[in-house]
Each structure stands twice: as structure tokens, then as C-alpha cells.
């Protein structure tokens, strides 16, 4: 076995041994090392304000208003362009965020600890579907939901996870692949397991028992007659919200995947991809043995299904850190585990199997944690080798949401996207130096 093949086996072994556990929740600027008051994190590789896409700009505008640094979009845009706000990739801070991935200093974040290798990873709270900050929307409805998430949801689940003594996210992913999820675009099972694990502790929290408090409320009157006219407890609001949002678990899953990818990073001679991420303008990758260097090229527009009233003409280019799931062998790589996903992103169940099968061509291992029942429990294809991508001319398959290209609108569909081949060729050239 060559020294590169050995290095890749070491890197993928480290990736699969990583054991990310959700241990806490905290305010970004208090818990993410290096986070500060004028720093806004975003998805994907580095980008300046003038090159940001509509949805990323929208999320930054919303974040600035949310932080109280501007009263309206006009003021926020001016501030963003002034240079007073610093922008940096979430990945530079061991953080990941879906779609725009905007993480502001006072937002509350999941904290995951890698119990095997040590270290922490972070991700913000998932807001649900439709018109949300991560898709670039920033009206009052969006900002009020963020306030509820930070002021009610986060403190309740913080208390709950402490009572639970941590939640093993890797185990939840493994089980959910047996229940029809891919762990990226379909998270009905992961979220169900997430709720099942944390619910008893949510019910036990002191915060959850409160019915009167000075914070935004979640209207549960559409959940049941029972809640009409009266105030629900914070615990009821939290659990109803979790149930209403299949993506509740996604951000914690992404932070878990970031933990696994980090474990594989920095292995000398390894040609494995340890970061894939998009900012809505560029697609970027980083490789285990080439340090912090990004290889970037213009991001493609996803091919998928659109919500009523929208078409491909409305779509922004690929955006988000959620492709960290494919980086460690789930998401599009585990599509065969989730044939029902084709209702959401297009194609047929046979396509889902084909997608997974194709990914074995460009990876170095079958995952020993994540497997697919319908493929005789074969491990998911894991550890993308830059050499194989270039040699076989096969790029990773990614399941993704589709954002509207204009700021302030939100999600318009979901589909499949491929990264540009150029970034793997550039990485190959660097590796050969």
C-alpha cells in the first residue's frame, strides 16, 4: 500500500472513530473561541460583501438587524459594506451552518464534544422551513422566531441536555439511516429520535415549566383546540416546534459531521476531502494534507423540484455548509437508505441507489457506523479521495435545498447539485507539488 493510501486509511479511520456528543448550548460569542461582537460567520469559503449572493446578503442584513446594529435593511446594508463588520467562514471556527449559515455573535448554538479525539464543534438552531434567515429572509416573522429560538427554545434545550448528560448524535444518525433518512435533506427519523431522546428531560426543565415570561411566544393554537385561549408552557412550545420541523436535528447532525471531518484533517500525505462548503457564489473544498487552503470555483445551480410559483429562474447557486454530511458519508452518499427523498428532490428510487453506488467509485472506505439495510447493510461510501474524483471524472452527489436568488424571500425548492470539477483538479495540483 502506498504512503498516500496508508494516509487515507488513517484519515478515514479517524473520521469513523470520532464520537460527537451534544453536550451543551451557549451564546456564540461566549462559547466559540475567537467569536466577537463585530464578527458574522457565514457558510462556505471566504467571501467579501460585494461578491455575496442575494440569500447570503439577506441573511447578513437580517443578522445585523437582529443584533440591534441597524434599524432596517438600508442601514444594515450600509454597515455591512462599511467594513465595520467582519465576515468569516463558519468552518474557520469549527462551526457549520445550513444554507447561508449566518451565525451572529449573540445567537445560541449547539455545542458538540468529540469524546474520542477531544475538541468542540458548533451550529446554530434550525428555524424550520420556508421563510427563514438561513435562506435570506429577514422580515419581522423571521426575526421574532429567532428571538424565540434564542430566548425560549435554547435555554430549555440547554437545561434538558445537561439533565440528559449529553446526546450521542452519531448513534441517532446510524439509526435514522435504517428508518429512511439520508441525514441531510430528509431528517424525519433523526428528528423523531432526537425528540424521543430529549423530550423527557425537556419536560423536567425548570424553564420548560414556565407559562408566563417576558419573551416572544410561539402560537400553538393551530396545534390543538387545547392550546386555544391559554398559554402553553415553554416545554410544550419547544416540543411542538420540534415536531413541526423535520430539520430540528439537522444543525446538530451537521456539527457532528464537522467533528468527524475535523478528525480526518491534518493527516500528512492524505488526499481525502475534509471540507466541502458553498457560500452561494463559490463552492470550496479543503483537503486533509493541504492545511487551511481552500480550492474554490463558481458554485452550480441545483437541479430539483420547485415549490408552487417558483422555477429554476428564481434559484440561487448552491449554498450552505450542510454538505459536511456528504463529506463524511451520509446525505447524497446515503441516498439508497432514503428512497422516499425523491418526493422532495426529484428522480426515482432507482436514482437514489445509483447515486450511492456511484459514490463508492470516489471514496476509500465503507463506513463502519453508517450502513444501508437495502444494500445488505453495506457501509455508506466514505472518505472522498481527490485522486479518484479526477481520475474517474465523478464529482460528489449532494442533496440540497434551493434558495431564491433575491434576498428576503427564502426557500424555493430542493434538489441535487454537483460541485465544479475544477476545485478537485486544483487540489490535485497542490497535492502533487
Amino acid at each position, binding site marked *: 500500500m*502506498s504512503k*498516500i493510501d496508508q494516509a487515507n486509511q488513517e484519515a478515514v479511520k479517524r473520521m469513523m472513530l470520532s464520537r460527537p456528543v451534544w453536550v451543551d448550548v451557549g451564546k456564540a460569542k461566549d462559547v466559540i473561541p475567537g467569536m466577537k461582537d463585530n464578527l458574522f460567520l457565514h457558510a462556505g469559503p471566504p467571501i467579501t460583501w460585494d461578491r455575496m449572493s442575494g440569500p447570503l446578503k439577506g441573511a447578513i442584513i437580517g443578522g445585523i438587524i437582529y443584533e440591534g446594529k441597524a434599524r432596517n435593511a438600508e442601514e444594515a446594508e450600509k454597515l455591512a459594506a462599511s467594513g465595520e463588520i467582519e465576515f468569516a467562514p463558519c468552518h474557520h471556527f469549527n462551526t457549520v451552518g445550513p444554507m447561508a449559515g449566518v451565525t451572529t455573535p449573540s445567537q445560541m448554538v449547539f455545542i458538540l464534544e468529540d469524546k474520542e479525539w477531544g475538541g468542540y464543534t458548533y451550529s446554530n438552531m434550525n428555524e424550520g422551513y420556508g421563510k427563514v434567515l438561513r435562506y435570506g429572509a429577514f422580515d419581522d416573522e423571521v426575526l421574532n422566531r429567532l428571538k424565540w429560538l434564542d430566548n425560549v427554545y435554547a435555554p430549555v434545550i440547554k437545561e434538558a441536555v445537561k439533565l440528559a448528560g449529553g446526546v450521542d448524535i452519531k448513534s441517532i444518525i446510524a439509526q435514522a439511516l435504517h428508518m429512511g433518512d439520508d441525514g441531510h435533506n430528509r431528517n424525519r427519523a433523526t428528528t423523531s429520535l432526537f425528540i424521543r431522546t430529549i423530550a423527557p428531560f425537556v419536560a423536567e426543565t425548570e424553564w420548560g415549566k414556565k407559562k408566563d415570561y417576558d419573551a416572544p411566544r410561539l402560537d400553538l393554537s393551530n396545534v390543538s383546540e387545547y392550546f386555544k385561549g391559554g398559554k402553553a408552557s415553554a416545554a410544550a412550545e419547544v416540543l411542538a416546534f420540534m415536531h413541526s420541523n423535520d430539520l430540528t436535528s439537522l444543525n446538530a447532525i451537521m456539527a457532528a459531521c464537522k467533528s468527524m471531518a475535523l478528525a480526518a484533517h491534518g493527516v500528512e500525505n492524505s*488526499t481525502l476531502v475534509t471540507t466541502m462548503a458553498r457560500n452561494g457564489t463559490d463552492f470550496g473544498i479543503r483537503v486533509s494534507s493541504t492545511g487551511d487552503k481552500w480550492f474554490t470555483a463558481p458554485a452550480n445551480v441545483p437541479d430539483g423540484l420547485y415549490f408552487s410559483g417558483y422555477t429554476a429562474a428564481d434559484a440561487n447557486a448552491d449554498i450552505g455548509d450542510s454538505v459536511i454530511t456528504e463529506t463524511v458519508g451520509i446525505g447524497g452518499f446515503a441516498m439508497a437508505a432514503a428512497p422516499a427523498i425523491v418526493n422532495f428532490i426529484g428522480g426515482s428510487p432507482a436514482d437514489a441507489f445509483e447515486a450511492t453506488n456511484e459514490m463508492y467509485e470516489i471514496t476509500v472506505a465503507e463506513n463502519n457506523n453508517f450502513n444501508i439495510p437495502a444494500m445488505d447493510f453495506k457501509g455508506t461510501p466514505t472518505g472522498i479521495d481527490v*485522486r479518484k474524483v*479526477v481520475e474517474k*471524472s465523478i464529482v460528489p452527489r449532494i442533496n440540497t435545498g434551493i434558495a431564491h436568488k433575491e434576498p428576503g424571500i427564502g426557500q424555493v425548492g430542493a434538489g441535487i447539485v454537483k460541485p465544479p470539477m475544477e476545485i478537485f*483538479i486544483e487540489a*490535485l495540483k497542490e*497535492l502533487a507539488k
Partner: protein
Amino acid sequence: MEDLFKKELKVINMGLEGFAETLKERGTTVLHVRWQPPAMGDDDLLSLLDKLK
């Protein structure tokens, strides 16, 4: 050779999918194998890959 065309044809097609599609449209059993030259046939990339074996 002539005998070949008197029997039912079963074809393995490699590379360009269009040939497989045409035969399928005529009712021929075809197994298509997706194949393309390594590294898109680019000599520079092939030499880099050789260096990274």
C-alpha cells in the same frame, strides 16, 4: 459472423450512452457500462495522478 445476427442480440455498450439508447429503442437487450477515459484523457492530469500513486 452472419450467424451472430440470426440470434437474439444481447449487447454490452461502453462509453457513449447514445448507442445503447438507439439499440434499446429497437428492442435489443443492452447493458450500458458508463466508461470514460481516466482523467478525461488529459495527459497533464494523468501525470499528476501517476505522481500521487
